[in-house]
């Protein structure tokens, strides 16, 4: 899912928005370490300080990595979930959650079966049933009410599509073509069966990452009005109301039993978790670094602002963690503008990733990426076409440009998501490298209109910025959404294919990959496609974003779990009591 760079009004924002859309990528603990050695203990209050408010608390509408992971640990259990680990090299795995096992695939990966546990309860004591799952999944089809969320999965379930391009079934509120949905998703007692249009060999990973396949109680559903209502089946429940801008407080759910949860992913250590949203990054870090009062029990999902790096020393450094995020930043040559392959190759060779990353904050902000796919994602491999030194090779780039037959200096317009001094510095650093190779660069920073402008097929940028993190740990959630021209390119929009890349070869390979039922074989096919993208210079990898956090001194068992997007794992963290 895309990384959103959204500058805010009046107050300077951090370099790259760390709360990005859904992801479940890999991470690796490094540098300052990612965990706290203090043993977890039950009790106390954990404070969660953040800037960006949750857009949705409705499981079927959520699409932000932080919220998907956190709410899964606290209130929304799914069919499967990810185990707790801070091992950066841990191979991705899923464990059963509300299902008795991690699911059984059949029909070449097109059908999945799960058996729902009979001992899990909602916060009012009623059991979680297969029907609750069926109802929850049906809500994603009500796209006129349940807006947002990973709605592209509508096309995965085997429900007929209308000429408009939307499914015939329009969700439980209107219920048109209900019979189609009833064939695609069935309940036979506790047995839930899902029928998909194509092979979905790693569906159980998607179910762990996204909340779209979570259960929902029909009698609690008020459609759009339910956006901030939280009805829990996890170890915590919301106390009072969720404030859309300020947050809320979670307390223990007395209907949750440890025996009904064999995932070992919810230690549920604090008695209470207080969420405070809307704080500026600088304020968050002033408070956490000062470590006084309640702030000693605080954690955050916000990255340390580069200006605060010098304060993270001594005792504060002991409270810091530096881990890989699942997000990769990259550049996209606009194929409507930059049609000459040699020019695109020259652009890549001249790209100074080191200077770009330094402008963002150095090794605590990111490390040079070798692919558009994050390491640890199933199917990751260094793209063999991106072998230039990370600081670029201006001489080789110049030679390529001269060999391209184009008139020099070659003019390019770089449109990027700007609005902060850090992002402007990054753009300037990139431009400097390109100029050395013979490009004449015009910088075009945009703020709130960025995606609107670059998504227009007629936009005249030669290069644009992009960012992405996988929706679940599979390369299949990276390549098709970004480079399948058939789902992206229309008359008025290029979707996520901001570079207007169109390749029949790549599209054909994507179709072939979609038919493969084995996870590893499918991933290998996508790796081949990535290689082809590299040959075409469909993208230029920049940096793998790093997460650099500091926590309060009285936080225990602190873990940045690579399987939950590298954010602090609320399933493990506790506080001194």
């Amino acid at each position, binding site marked *: 899912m895309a990384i*959103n760079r959204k500058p805010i009004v009046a*107050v300077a924002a951090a370099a790259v928005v760390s709360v990005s859309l859904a992801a479940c990528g890999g991470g690796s603990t490094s540098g300052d370490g990612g965990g706290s050695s203090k043993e977890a203990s039950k009790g106390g209050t954990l404070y969660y300080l953040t800037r960006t408010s949750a857009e949705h608390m409705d499981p079927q509408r959520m699409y932000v990595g932080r919220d998907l992971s956190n709410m899964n640990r606290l209130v929304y259990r799914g069919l499967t979930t990810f185990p707790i680990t801070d091992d950066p090299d841990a191979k991705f795995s899923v464990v059963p959650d509300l299902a008795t096992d991690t699911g059984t695939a059949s029909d070449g990966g097109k059908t999945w079966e799960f058996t729902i546990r009979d001992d899990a309860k909602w916060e009012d004591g009623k059991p979680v049933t297969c029907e609750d799952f069926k109802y929850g999944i049906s809500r994603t089809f009500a796209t006129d009410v349940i807006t*947002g969320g990973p709605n592209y999965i509508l096309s995965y379930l085997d429900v007929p599509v209308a000429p408009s391009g939307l499914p015939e079934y329009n969700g439980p509120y209107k219920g048109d073509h209900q019979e189609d949905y009833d064939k695609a998703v069935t309940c036979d007692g506790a047995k839930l069966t899902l029928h998909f249009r194509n092979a979905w060999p790693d569906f159980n990973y998607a179910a762990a990452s996204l909340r779209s396949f979570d259960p929902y109680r029909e009698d609690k559903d008020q459609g759009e009005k339910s956006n901030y209502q939280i009805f829990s089946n996890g170890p915590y429940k919301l106390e009072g109301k969720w404030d859309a801008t300020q947050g809320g407080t979670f307390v223990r759910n007395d209907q949750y039993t440890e025996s009904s949860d064999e995932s070992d992913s919810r230690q549920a250590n604090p008695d209470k978790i207080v969420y405070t949203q809307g704080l500026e990054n*600088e304020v968050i870090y*002033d408070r956490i670094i000062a470590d*006084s009062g309640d702030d000693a029990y605080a954690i955050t999902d916000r990255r340390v602002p580069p200006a605060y790096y010098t304060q993270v020393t001594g005792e504060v450094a002991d409270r810091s963690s530096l881990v890989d995020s699942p997000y990769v930043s990259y550049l996209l040559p606009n194929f409507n503008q930059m049609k000459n392959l040699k020019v695109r190759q020259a652009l890549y060779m001249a790209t100074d990733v080191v200077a770009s990353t330094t402008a963002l904050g150095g090794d605590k902000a990111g490390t040079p990426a070798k692919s558009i796919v994050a390491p640890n994602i199933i199917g990751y491999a260094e793209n063999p076409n991106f072998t230039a030194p990370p600081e670029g090779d201006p001489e080789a780039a110049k030679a390529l440009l001269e060999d391209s037959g184009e008139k020099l200096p070659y003019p390019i317009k770089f449109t990027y998501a700007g609005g902060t001094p850090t992002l402007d510095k990054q753009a300037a650093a990139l431009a400097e490298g390109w100029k050395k190779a013979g490009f004449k660069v015009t910088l075009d920073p945009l703020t*709130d209109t960025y995606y609107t402008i670059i998504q227009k097929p007629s936009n005249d940028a030669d290069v644009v910025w992009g960012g992405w993190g996988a929706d679940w740990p599979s390369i299949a959630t990276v390549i098709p959404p970004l480079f399948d021209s058939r789902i992206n390119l229309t008359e008025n929009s290029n979707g996520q294919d901001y570079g207007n890349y169109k390749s029949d070869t790549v599209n054909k390979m994507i179709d072939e990959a979609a038919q493969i039922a084995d996870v590893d074989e499918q991933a290998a096919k996508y790796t081949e496609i990535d290689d082809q993208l590299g040959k075409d210079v469909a993208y230029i990898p920049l940096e793998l974003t790093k997460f650099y956090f500091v926590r309060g001194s009285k936080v225990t068992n602190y873990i940045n779990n690579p399987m939950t997007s590298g954010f602090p794992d609320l399933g493990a963290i506790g506080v001194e009591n």
Partner: protein
Amino acid sequence: MTAYIIRRMFTGIIMLIVMSMVTFLLFFSSPVNPEDFACGKNCSPALKAQTKKALGYDEPVTTQWVKFAKGVFVGRDFPDDPALKESAPETIAECPAPCLGYSRTTNSTVTEQIKEAWPISLSLAITAFFMWMIGGIVFGVIAALRRGSIIDRGIVGASLVFYAFPTFFIGLFLYKFLAIKWEIVKIPEYVPISEGGVSVWFQGLLLPAFTLSLVYMAGYVRMTRAFVLESMGEDYLRTAKSKGLAPRKVLYKHSMRAALTPLVTMAGLDLAGLMGGAIITEQVFNYPGLGKLAVTATRNFDLPLVVGIVLVLAAVVIVANLVVDLLYAVIDPRVRVG
């Protein structure tokens, strides 16, 4: 007087209508598509079209404005979908008159949100108002009475410094040192009087209000000083002094009265402006008032919320203008309302 008030109120209503139209037009002339915000990033063109329809943005701007205006008087239901009303009435949000719209990003009526946020902005504005008025007038008068002295220069210099610094800098500076480092005041947090009592409410309010007051106080110090000095040079004050009136009486009864008249106009308008939210202060201190709500609404391209806040703010300024004009006549006998 009554005719004057009615005339001014009528003009105010016309202004509100025009402002709502202008806000609508500006919103739709922007290159940003509001449905993109609601639909998410992986949205197909068909889904975008459906989201646009669900939000009601597929209708002509004039139709949307007429529906909005009608809602102010008779209320509305959201979404306005007859099929949904029949099949799933529990999903319909009712917005009783005066309905200013329904925010699809916060999933509540604009009126409800403004009702929740306004007391917070009001608390902040009034507390800051008292702080800056007292500080501004006291220091301004002292500076005027000690004209040319070190005290005068110190006060004027300090006010210049606070006037020059941006609010977010002063706010973050005070937050960092007074609240976080030295722990002199509590971490700012709005607690309604009904929940924590006056003491907790005030403690949570102290730092944001102080920040806001410093910025305004600086201007008021300089203006009070200038007005007092100006009035002290007037002939009628020389006459009062030569008649043998006590200096204190000359200052408070004659000089201050003349000096305060223009300050009242300014203070009224400043206070009215702040009632619509102190955007930067609320943002820095995470105070969920109208200012922060306005920023959030703008960032989310939330038209109903933006229009609602604009109208409430405009209404407050229009009413405050009228009140100030009426007060002006009371304070300054030379002014007569016709």
